[in-house]
């Protein structure tokens, strides 16, 4: 569970992702890139693959583990679907290793800007939507301590 980009600001990482995605004109290329990210996602600790960490969606399942250390939130996550894993990898690169205040300052709109909004629409009821609400809720909870 690392903060992968902790030397950059959260907004810088978000902008970097938006830029990466702007290189792909074809939808399939975007997804190819996401699949790649999914395949290279840091392995999720088997000990954390528990029922209480499982976010059950309609289609894909998502496991989310978090810890709060030295004022920062760290996340690890996994999914049984590879495209979902790719999006998880993006979310972790942006939000893991951040302070609750930093996380709360983000409006998560970069997902929309790279054209993946449909994957995160609440009506899709997939694990990703719940993953984001969990990240937000944790940030809010920790910002109050």
């Amino acid at each position, binding site marked *: 569970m690392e903060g992968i980009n902790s030397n950059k600001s959260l907004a810088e990482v978000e902008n970097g992702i938006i830029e990466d995605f702007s290189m792909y004109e074809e*939808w*399939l290329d975007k*997804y*190819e890139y996401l*699949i790649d990210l999914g395949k290279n996602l840091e392995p999720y600790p088997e000990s954390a693959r528990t029922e209480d960490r499982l976010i059950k969606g*309609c*289609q*894909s*399942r998502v496991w989310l583990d978090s810890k709060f250390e030295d004022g920062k939130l760290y996340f690890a996550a996994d999914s*049984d*679907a*590879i*495209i*979902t894993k790719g999006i998880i990898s993006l979310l972790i690169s942006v939000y893991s290793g951040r302070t609750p205040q930093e996380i709360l300052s983000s409006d998560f709109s970069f997902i929309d800007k790279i054209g993946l909004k449909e*994957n995160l629409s609440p009506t899709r009821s*997939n694990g990703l939507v719940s993953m984001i609400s969990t990240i937000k809720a944790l940030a809010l909870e920790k910002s109050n301590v």
Partner: protein
Amino acid sequence: MNVNELRNFFPALETEIFGKKLVYFDNAASSQRYIRAVKRQEDLSLHCNANIHRAVHKLSADATEEYESTRNAVKDFLNASSREEIVFTSGTTNSINLVAFSFGETFIHEGDEIVVSEAEHHSDIVPWQMLCSRKNAVLKVIKVDDNGILDIDSLTSALSERTRIVAVTHISNVLGLVNPVREIISICHSKGIPVLIDGAQGIVHQRVDVQELDCDFYAFSGHKIYASTGTGVLYGKKKWLEAMIPYMGGGEMIDHVSFSGTTYAPLPGKFEAGTQNFNSIPTLKDSIELFKLLQDNELKLYCDKVSSFMYDALTSDSRIKLYGVPCGTVSKIPLYSITVKGVHHEDLALLLDKMGIATRSGQMCAEPLMDRFGVTGMLRISLAPYNTMEEAQYFIKCLDKAIAMLS
């Protein structure tokens, strides 16, 4: 008629998705709309819009005529013995809930048993579960084998002295196999047990004659047979509908209302409380007309060719597992639910979507069946007569590409 002539009746098929020509392979969820149904609905909304049955004015009389002539058309289409046996609903779910409530409240008591199959859509499971919990009744389940074929022995052993009704699907929306409903009905009737058939998929692909089938109830939706959304039918034998208490109370379903007691309208009004969907129900007439067009020999031969191509392509690929394998007398509609080794159904559906192909992924409202096969979901490809060989070939190519990207 050839397939291109047929496609002209479905303008939605010309839609572009992500810059690609739409390939609509999610017909089992909802078909595209038949242009004449769309036009009729528009015409009724614009030029013949008045509440039915109530007023004496001309517009209301015309709207009533459109609505009631649809009942005659559906009666003839299903070969029901009388128009009283045709109840309009908002869809299959509504039709089944009506029976589960009205039949249930009239005939089900503590300890009674209701039988469904494990291949049912949630809408033919949950209403019965709700009934069972109201009445302390018991829900029993008929099994399917590894090919998805309904196990008739397990039906026979599920039936008991306490069985009050059996509810099974004509064709499962996951397996696409045509269940031997005639045989099921005669087994149940030999023990005096009525049978409800969930015809949501059956009506799309089979000629349904309710007298020949001898089913007690048959439920289906208009939106799967090219008519408007929010339209549906419940066929019920008169003897049951007459004996059953109403489902909903309200306007139109009554004979006399007073605070000392209310009497109900005769059939079918007793089950049609409140303002009905009078702008949309008449589009069922267009479905029926289309159904006749679809009997065209050239079209049927073409459909068979496309179906065999799909079936052969999907079953000859060792990476793919197909659920619902036809055998013996059990035939299959062009509906293919698959899983691919090591690949998630959602990933496949997302990539296919980007190639312009609409499919369905997930549990398909049949979680018990997913559990039966030990999967979290499947990818479903369901065709309609307007789908072409070129689309089928393009799909197989794209599926191959998607699998390669994901492996």
